[in-house]
């Protein structure tokens, strides 16, 4: 068993353009999520939403490692808008799916909780807790058998290691040494219940020794630290050494879903996390490195807002699917 905590400071400074891309995508995600919430409250988006505001660092750090053309794949949870965008889903495709429009990534059949885009390696954003983890193993199995060198990453929340499928899947991946990475976003809450009240161990990675795999904690608010940690696990997987469990400590600024205002959180907790905002952490670092000016940062904000607005306007104008399409894609003919 190897268990170590990563130093949260990033030793290797990433190239300016990589940082620029990660920062822009975090802003895109942030503004997209805020717009989605507005549209939900306006009843333009129906059903439910699970926003990832505050967790953008995990999304872009993870996505920076994924090589979809090589066959890398991702499964994640219903809090998956950020991961999908980080992997390369367009804002238009996302917004149209949110609204149930034909132009959505899943032709309006999926909605907020079911995003798939195989072109970017996204098998799905799974709406049943734990369901994506066993499926990740299968994608990793294909990579192992076909010797493609691809990896499959499963992203899940801190509530998932309390469900049986997670244990079955992590165990199988360890036994078969599958090229898989298990990336937990520990945002401290499983729905409305705190992590501490539902798990008997202080950290999710404390479960890694049970499966004989490495467990690594990373600062989920530091996108570059996430990238470095995921890269290490991916390299390990590609080399045939099996899966790694990563725990990204992060926080969702909003409630679990819909209109949840998270009254169950202790006073002051949100403020503590707002002080460690992933967008600010990266932008501050870039400013200190002379890679970003205040003006440029403002321009990036504006670009994200404009892109989200353009996608929203476009999606609103898109047609709904025809009702005849309800019969499509039940079967492969």
């Amino acid at each position, binding site marked *: 068993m190897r268990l170590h905590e990563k130093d949260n400071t990033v030793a290797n400074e990433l190239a300016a353009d990589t940082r620029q891309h990660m920062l822009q995508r975090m802003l895109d995600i942030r503004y997209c999520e805020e717009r989605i919430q507005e549209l939900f409250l306006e009843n333009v988006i129906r059903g439910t939403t699970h926003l990832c505001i505050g967790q953008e660092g995990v999304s872009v750090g993870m996505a920076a490692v994924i090589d979809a053309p090589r*066959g890398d*794949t991702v*499964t994640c949870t219903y809090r998956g808008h950020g991961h999908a965008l980080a992997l390369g889903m367009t804002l238009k495709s996302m917004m149209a799916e949110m609204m149930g429009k034909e132009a*959505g*990534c*899943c*032709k*309006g*059949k*999926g909605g907020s909780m*079911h995003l*798939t*885009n*195989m072109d970017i390696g996204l*098998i*799905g954003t*799974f709406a*049943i807790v*734990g*369901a994506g*983890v*066993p*499926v*990740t*193993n*299968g*994608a*990793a*199995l*294909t*990579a192992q*058998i*076909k010797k493609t060198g691809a990896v*499959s990453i499963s992203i899940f929340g801190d509530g998932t290691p309390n469900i*049986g*499928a997670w244990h*079955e*899947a992590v*165990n*199988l991946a360890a*036994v*078969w040494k599958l090229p898989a990475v298990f990336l937990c976003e520990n945002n401290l809450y499983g729905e409305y219940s705190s992590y501490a009240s539902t798990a008997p161990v202080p950290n999710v990675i404390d479960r890694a020794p049970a499966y004989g795999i490495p467990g690594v904690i990373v600062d989920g608010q530091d996108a570059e630290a996430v990238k470095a940690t995921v890269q290490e696990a991916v390299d390990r997987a590609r080399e045939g050494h099996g899966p790694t469990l990563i725990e990204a400590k992060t926080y969702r600024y909003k409630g679990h879903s819909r209109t949840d205002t998270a009254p169950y959180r202790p006073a002051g907790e949100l403020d503590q996390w707002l002080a460690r905002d992933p967008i600010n952490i990266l932008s501050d670092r870039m400013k200190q490195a002379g890679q970003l000016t205040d003006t440029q940062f403002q321009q990036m904000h504006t670009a994200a807002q404009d892109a989200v607005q353009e996608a929203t306007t476009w999606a609103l104008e898109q047609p709904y699917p025809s009702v005849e399409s309800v019969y*499509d*894609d*039940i*079967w*492969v003919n």
Partner: protein
Amino acid sequence: MAIITYREAVKRALDEEMARDENVIFFGEDVGVAGGVFKVTPGLYEKYGGIRVRDTPISENAIIGAGIGAAVTGLRPVVELMFADFAAVTLDQIINQAAKFRYMSGGQLKVPLTIRAAQGGGAGFASQHSQCVETWFMHAPGLKVVVPSNPADVLGLLKTAIRDDNPVVFLEHKNQYAEKGEVPDGEHIIPFGVANIVREGKDVTIIATQKMVAVAMSAAEELAKEGISCEVIDPRTLVPLDIETITTSVKKTGRLVTVEEAPHAGGWGAEVVTRITDNAIWSLEAPVVRVTLEGALIPFSQPLEDYVIPNKGRVVTAIHRMLDI
């Protein structure tokens, strides 16, 4: 023509398809080195190796999930759940994931996954290892459901299942593994959705699957001695269901009996009956009769188990009542 057992037909189908397509892989609990707890797959591990034929931990969610993930990324996995009852452990993966992937993804994903499992009673395995579970899956659009009754159908249908781009639940009857039957030489493929008219008749249509086909046939033999002519139809696949063949038969006979080794409520026979009332209600000359499990659950004790599973006598009695004899 060769005569092989039902169990050998399973292995032959797997062997032929694994030889034909390197994307076909096979895994499950003790299916490899041990050749399966029902000794259905001995030799495959030795022939195809531990990369393509794998033993898994006792982890049904992990088994089905790995099958799904492998299927959506280019392989054609065949996974075994051992006892079909164990599917209940992993219904989320089968019903919420495998069945819905294509639909929810707007047609992006396909799941060419075959899930094999052994179902059925009569062997003293009691309530949790004896059920016929086909209706669990009939209610999950996106899944195909196959219930072969003889070695030739096992061979032809399992090969079709493996080549199908949809998830297929392939249910073998564990009490038929030793049964022998003729299978054609060479490539033998049976398309889904084509019922088999096992016996032609003109007075009563009997629909039966798996073990119940033989029960229906023995009842038909006995009734023939009384001058009652029964047509016995084995649908072979419940999804898709060849309702046309059944409809044609009922329009001819005017009478319909289903024989189901499963609880009455919500059984596949209920689906057949309602489809027939849609298609041929004015052809019916008598109320439809469904012969199903007595009671509802499979008990352990042999006299009790023998009592609950439909037999020749119950089918004959049902048809006598139907004909007001």
